[in-house]
């Protein structure tokens, strides 16, 4: 079995590490306040944290604020120093040079997802933020789920509105800290009043807000899971099991593989988990078997699974090791065929897997 492949960090993790280390060199941290809609209170949470940190002696400036400030935000702002943004006819642009010259410990930027007007040094505000981070300035900023590029379609399907101002999800995944600002949907609706119509979303309903809310919670969980993975690897800790559901479907030529993959896909969606499909090649296989496996692996990819073909003399040991490495919580396997000669020597493979895969649920499927 290709053990070396398994312990190699994923490209995403490497990228995250590189980005994080680059900022760390300068001691700068990026902290994002995520909300599922306008009106959940992101700006308040963020400015309140800025106020508290300012009172504890941190050097904090505000480089961009929302144009319309409710009273509670205005009160917070009075206690904070502002580096005035550059005024252009139709937008506020962060004065990156002025902030770098002022060189504070922390800079507040509200909101993050803004396009700079043509002719600006950076086309997007998140690029300004990267520049400040590279200059050793920590950032507090706010993001609305509506503006995360990868969620654009989903959000559009829910709200019927598109947005031109987006930031890539990788930007969120690379953040040092992310906090979700969660409030009940009815409170959000109540607070919003006419705010939604002013940003172009009309007749948004509680149900739709609820779906956005679920997406935001799961996105945050994903970021936290990625951070946990990085932490666990950095500290050489054994993987923490059972936080996210991770399903592993083991297919053989004569298993009811399509049904198992379908069930795996449903479970993945239900639990918002991960789906892996493996096939362990061992000994000689007939052409028929090869064709069947090809069909199954194709179905697995279409189901959004991560597909892996392993080579091993002892498939059960290989599966158990793979499962442990990938922090699998549930293994799907077909019921054994009766009276296979191998089983007389080694015992029923399903029961062997149950014994080998300690700490993992084993779901045995009808043939």
């Amino acid at each position, binding site marked *: 079995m290709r053990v070396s492949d398994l312990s190699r960090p994923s490209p995403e993790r490497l990228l995250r590490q590189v980005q994080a280390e680059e900022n760390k060199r300068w001691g700068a941290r990026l902290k994002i306040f995520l909300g599922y809609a306008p009106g959940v209170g992101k700006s308040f949470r963020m400015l309140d944290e800025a106020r508290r940190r300012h009172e504890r002696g941190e050097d904090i400036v505000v480089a961009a604020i929302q144009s319309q400030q409710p009273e509670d935000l205005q009160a917070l702002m009075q206690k904070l120093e502002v580096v005035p943004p550059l005024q252009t006819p139709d937008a506020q642009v962060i004065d990156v040079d002025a902030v770098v010259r002022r060189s504070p410990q922390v800079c507040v930027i509200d909101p993050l997802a803004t396009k700079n007007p043509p002719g600006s040094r950076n086309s997007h505000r998140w690029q300004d933020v990267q520049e400040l981070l590279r200059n050793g300035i920590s950032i507090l900023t706010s993001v609305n789920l509506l503006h995360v590029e990868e969620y654009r379609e989903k959000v559009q399907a829910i709200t019927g509105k598109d947005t031109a101002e987006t930031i890539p999800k990788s930007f969120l995944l690379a953040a040092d800290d992310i906090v979700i600002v969660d409030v009940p949907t009815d409170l959000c609706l109540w607070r919003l009043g006419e705010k939604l119509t002013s940003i172009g979303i009309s007749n948004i309903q509680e149900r739709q807000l609820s779906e956005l809310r679920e997406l935001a919670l799961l996105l945050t969980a994903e970021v936290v899971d990625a951070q946990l993975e990085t932490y666990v690897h950095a500290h050489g800790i054994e993987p923490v099991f059972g936080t996210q559901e991770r399903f592993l479907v083991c297919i053989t030529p004569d298993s009811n593989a399509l049904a198992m993959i379908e069930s795996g896909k449903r479970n993945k969606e239900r639990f918002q988990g991960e789906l892996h499909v493996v096939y362990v090649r061992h000994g000689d296989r007939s052409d028929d078997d090869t064709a069947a496996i090809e069909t199954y692996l194709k179905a697995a990819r279409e189901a959004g699974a991560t597909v892996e073909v392993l080579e091993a003399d002892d498939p059960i040991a290989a599966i158990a090791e793979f499962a442990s490495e990938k922090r699998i919580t549930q293994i799907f396997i077909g019921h054994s065929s009766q009276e296979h000669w191998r089983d007389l020597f080694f015992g029923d493979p399903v029961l062997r897997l149950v014994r080998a895969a300690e*700490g993992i649920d084993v779901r045995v499927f009808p043939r």
Partner: protein
Amino acid sequence: MPAPEGPQRGNLKVYLGYAAGVGKTFQMLADGHAAVERGVDVAVAYFEPHARHDTIAQVQGLDHVPHRKLDYRGRTFEEMNTDAVLARGPRVALVDELAHTNIPGSTRAKRWEDVQTLLDAGIEVWTTMNVQHIESLNDHVWQVTGIRVRETVPDWVIRQAAEIVAVDVTPEALLNRLKRGAIYKPEMVEKALTGFFKGSNLGALREMTLRQAAHEVDLRQSVYDEASDLQVPTISKSSSAETSGEQLKERILIHITADASSAMLLRRGRRVADFLHSTPVALFVHKTPEFADLPAAEREAIEKHLRFARNLRIETAILGGQDVSRTVVDFARRNQVSQIFVARSPSGLRERLLGGRYAEDIVRMADDLQVIVVANRSRRHNS
């Protein structure tokens, strides 16, 4: 359901966090103030007297129903005075620490039971709890953190909440609060840092909280579907479209024995059933349905497991049968069960006599059904 008599049941709102100090109580009190400003009659029904000072400041200005003081083993304890809250009859009662176990001698054993009384009287209750106190997550939490949480709240209590709010803070900020002495007294801080507040623990519990909150939000979306025929666009996930199809209706059977692993099995089965919107049934099989011939300890264990199942709102069944595994599989086939949950066969001889080697037999016999051999989520050392 019988026609409701008396007041309409109050709504329950739960502020869910992942550790002491994340700001659940603070958030609840802040929302309480906001409600008062809107003219809502809010009263603090229970408030942890040893709270952090910024939280204590936050309680100022809210009406407070005095706690009940109880003497127990020479010390004075404070509990919520449920009768006084009922007499005061606020629109909204704020009750800190839902998972709390009352001092012996209280009317009800658990605070969540007191909360049921308030809800029955038509009082809306806002309350706080941490994710690790959810009953069905008990084994998960133990596996991840190595800590066996004793005070738990049954899942159905949380399920009846009209609203769950995730209270989030980064572990970094939480650790700063801890080190500043804002959560525990200084002498407690070192212990907390190497125990519950370890970096990996906090991350895992935080992720659990976010996923649980997302799950609770998801469960409550079906309310909107039932409440209106409006054509609301929904995102393409399995929830609405697929589960409505009858062919996907799953029925879960949980096979319980005298072995201690049955509690874990029940929690796991309950959790999966919730996610699949399915009704689970717990089955115990013995040679005779009376199980009078069992040793007292075993009988007690089984009764405890059956009680626990009912507590988790799982239907229970007891059957007589010489061949236990055969009886389980036959019952499953007769009752259109699609998934059987069994515990791994224990390895010790004594345990094997108690729990039997049913997993193997059931897997072999039920080759037309899905059989889930549930892991014994024992602790993996991760320091």
